[in-house]
């Protein structure tokens, strides 16, 4: 497809863009020149020149629409984006499930693409590239070519650990529009059928979950209900940890020391609570081995789950997809269970999302890449991700935009992919009040966001760099020793009384040093 003639063109383009760049910078001092494109335009080339080719490595994000495409580079939204931003994107998809592994291989393999999606420059995959100076420092480039992006973040935010190191910016940030993005969902029709109110406290939740277990709310005559389910590694399953303020992947500043939640004393109570849920068959017995698809199937397809957590922005999708298989299903977002100290909810995410773009030093047109990413911070860019393609997703009549809201589940998936996946960075549709107001069936999402905004557990370790001890002893992370211990306690293979022994063991195996490193980082950066 991309024959040699294409490559020749590419080379020509690169050369011509370099020339344009030169002439632009030459014009820089000459303010009287009126023909120079405004910086906010964002397009790398106007007129007859071929657009710059940018090779991009980007995760699929697990979006079904993206994963279902036969060729991402031929998708209608990709074509539209290229046209609007004036670039030629050559995207290579990284599978969502093996993202970390594949990213590692991309970095190890050399021959890097021009623009790479990462989970932050402080992760173990990217950190060596930063240390070796393989990534382009972006401070000057952002100042010169991405003025809209520059404005969108505060000074404080530009220093965030996922994008910058010692004052040098290596990552182009993505913004988290919903830091309190996680919300609990409950089957309202089950509650109504059993005559129960919406639960609030831990005790009320336990009562409700017991009723789900015993009273056959799905009405199939079998006791097959799973009151509460989760994916493995407590993904979408940490809401009861949240009630104790100890979501396992978070950190808390305790007695002047930045300590991982996994070893805090409250964790013992939280584990005891999960054990009780498991023993009473209120918590899914398969939660420790379950992948996302099985979890999904139980909720939407098999109609056996009463309570679960997921993204607040997907509230509408959960409601409509569950309804597709179970017509009587009513899914509503509810406040998370409130624990003894009044804490509740998922871990609050920082305003800088843990997705950051990096540009290797080998990239040919960094200025064009910066301009391309700045496009998403312009009105034009926001309009594309929010509303899509004119004539296809919306029509313009006079001043107002007539948006064709998706109605089927597939259309919702497509809209989600456009609004989230195609939004490489920038403020997304959630910040667009007019869109949110006019969107039909959006009450659930708005409601879910309102609920989740009132709850959540603060993570004092947000933006932490890759600490040396955690890199050489990865088992100290919550997916290591803690997960094994927690799984054993919950399933009854180890006594909860061993918690103190676990903490002592964790500390002696390098945990003490890890806390020291984390505390030093915290004190230096706060």
């Amino acid at each position, binding site marked *: 497809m991309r024959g040699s003639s294409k490559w020749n063109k590419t080379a020509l383009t690169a050369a011509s863009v370099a020339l344009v760049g030169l002439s632009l910078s030459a014009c820089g001092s000459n303010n009287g020149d009126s023909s120079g494109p405004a910086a906010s335009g964002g397009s790398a080339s106007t007129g007859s020149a071929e657009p710059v080719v940018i090779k991009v490595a980007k995760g699929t994000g697990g979006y079904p629409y993206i994963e279902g495409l036969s060729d991402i580079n031929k998708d209608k939204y990709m074509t539209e984006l290229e046209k609007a931003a004036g670039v030629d994107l050559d995207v290579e998809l990284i599978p969502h499930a093996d993202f*970390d*592994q594949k990213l*590692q*291989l991309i*970095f*190890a393999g*050399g021959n890097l693409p021009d623009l790479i999606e990462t989970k932050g420059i402080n992760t*173990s*995959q990217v*950190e*060596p*590239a930063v*240390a*070796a*100076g*393989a990534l382009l420092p972006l401070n000057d480039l952002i100042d010169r070519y991405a003025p809209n992006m520059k404005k969108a973040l505060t000074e404080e935010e530009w220093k965030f650990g996922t994008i910058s190191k010692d004052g040098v910016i290596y990552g182009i940030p993505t913004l988290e529009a919903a830091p309190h993005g996680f919300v609990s969902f409950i089957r309202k029709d089950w509650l109504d059928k059993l005559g129960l109110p919406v639960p609030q406290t831990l005790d009320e939740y336990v009562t409700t979950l017991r009723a789900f277990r015993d009273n056959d709310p799905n009405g199939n005559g079998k006791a*097959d209900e*799973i009151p509460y389910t989760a994916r*493995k590694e407590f993904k979408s399953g940490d809401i009861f940890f949240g009630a104790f303020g100890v979501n396992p992947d978070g950190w808390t500043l305790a007695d002047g020391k930045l300590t991982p939640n996994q070893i805090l004393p409250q964790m013992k109570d939280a584990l005891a609570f999960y054990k009780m849920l498991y023993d009473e068959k209120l918590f899914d*017995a*398969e939660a*420790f*081995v379950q992948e996302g698809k099985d979890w999904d199937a139980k909720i939407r397809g098999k109609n056996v789950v009463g309570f679960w957590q997921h993204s607040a922005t997907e509230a509408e999708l959960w409601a409509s997809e569950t309804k597709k298989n179970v017509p009587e299903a009513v899914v509503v977002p509810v406040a998370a269970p409130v624990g003894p100290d009044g804490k509740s909810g998922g871990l609050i995410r920082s305003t800088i999302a843990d997705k950051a773009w990096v540009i290797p030093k080998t990239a040919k047109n960094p200025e064009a890449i910066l301009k391309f990413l700045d496009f998403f911070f312009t009105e034009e860019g926001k309009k594309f991700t929010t509303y899509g393609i004119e004539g296809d997703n919306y029509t313009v009549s006079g001043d107002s935009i007539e948006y064709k809201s998706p109605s089927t589940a597939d259309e919702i998936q497509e809209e989600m992919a456009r609004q989230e996946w195609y939004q490489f960075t920038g403020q997304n549709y959630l910040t667009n009040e007019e869109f949110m107001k006019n969107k039909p069936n959006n009450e659930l999402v708005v409601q879910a966001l309102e609920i989740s905004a009132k709850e959540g557990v603060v993570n004092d370790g947000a933006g932490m760099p890759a600490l040396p001890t955690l*890199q*050489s002893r*990865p*088992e100290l992370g919550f997916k290591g020793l803690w*997960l*094994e211990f*927690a*799984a*054993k306690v919950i*399933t009854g*293979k180890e006594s909860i009384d061993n918690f103190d022994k676990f903490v002592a063991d964790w500390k002696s*195996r390098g945990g003490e040093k890890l806390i020291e490193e984390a505390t030093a980082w915290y004190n230096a950066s706060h």
Partner: protein
Amino acid sequence: MAELTDIQLTRSSPPAEARPIADEKKRHHLVKNWQIYSMVAPGIVFFLLFKVFPMLGIVIAFQNYNYYEGILHSPFVGFAHFKELFEYPEFARIFKNTMIISFYQLIFEFPTPILLALLLNEVGHSFLKRTFQTLMYLPHFLSWVIVGGLTISLLSPSTGFVNEVLGWFGREPISFMQESSYFRSIIITSGVWKEVGWGTIVFLAALAGINPEMYESAQVDGAGKLRQLVSITLPSLLPTIMVVLLLKIGSMMDLGFEHIYMLLNPLVYDTGEVLDTFIYRLGLLGGQLSYTTAIGLFKSVIGLVLVVGANQLSKRTTGNSIY
């Protein structure tokens, strides 16, 4: 496989050095038989290029390798990574699991294809025989992701067939995948199911090569089926069995990463985590390339010792050996 390569290479090189023939004569020999040697050349080049040359990469086990400085410039740290491995608190557990699962594989997964080949050989009807054979090959072509998924759903406490059957007998469902005591059995059973058919091929070929006249004369002498099996079939199969066994021992430490990783979860780490899965977690996910290369090298050395030892033993006891 790295260990095997060594052996094949040592087989081809030492005789040339061992016999100090006059250069002239040797050259003569090479020149005279150049057609034959040119046919061997691609094979030698293949092994040099894809097996021997990449072995230079093990040097990173003694460095703090990072891919920006490359093999030539990464700092040299000697045996530090090996020390780290032996001092790792879970090392004993991981090593023990690796050895136990390898041993189980050897005693269960090795003999079953022989048994199956003998049974298949007795199926008189050739259409039936071929149908059975083909059906048994099929699982070999499924990836572990699929077989792992099948295993998990078969054993699921809520929807799995096995627990359904247990339910008929009034038993409570068992969460097989979360019980460390079942883990190794599940690994071995699924491994046998997937590979047993494929493993029969070489034995069936060997069985087909046995001279039918031996059976005929045995029948004339009044030997029954069992007698024929013990006195004709098994002795004729022995060389094949020994070679397959030795090859198997050589790759004994390679447990099939995908197979175990698919079924592994935190509840069964204590019986299921092996060197291969440990390497994956540290190396590919954690980016510790030097450390994991050191572990891989350690594994290969054990493999090499095992195969050389077993080969010597076999040579002395049965006279069969792979080199």
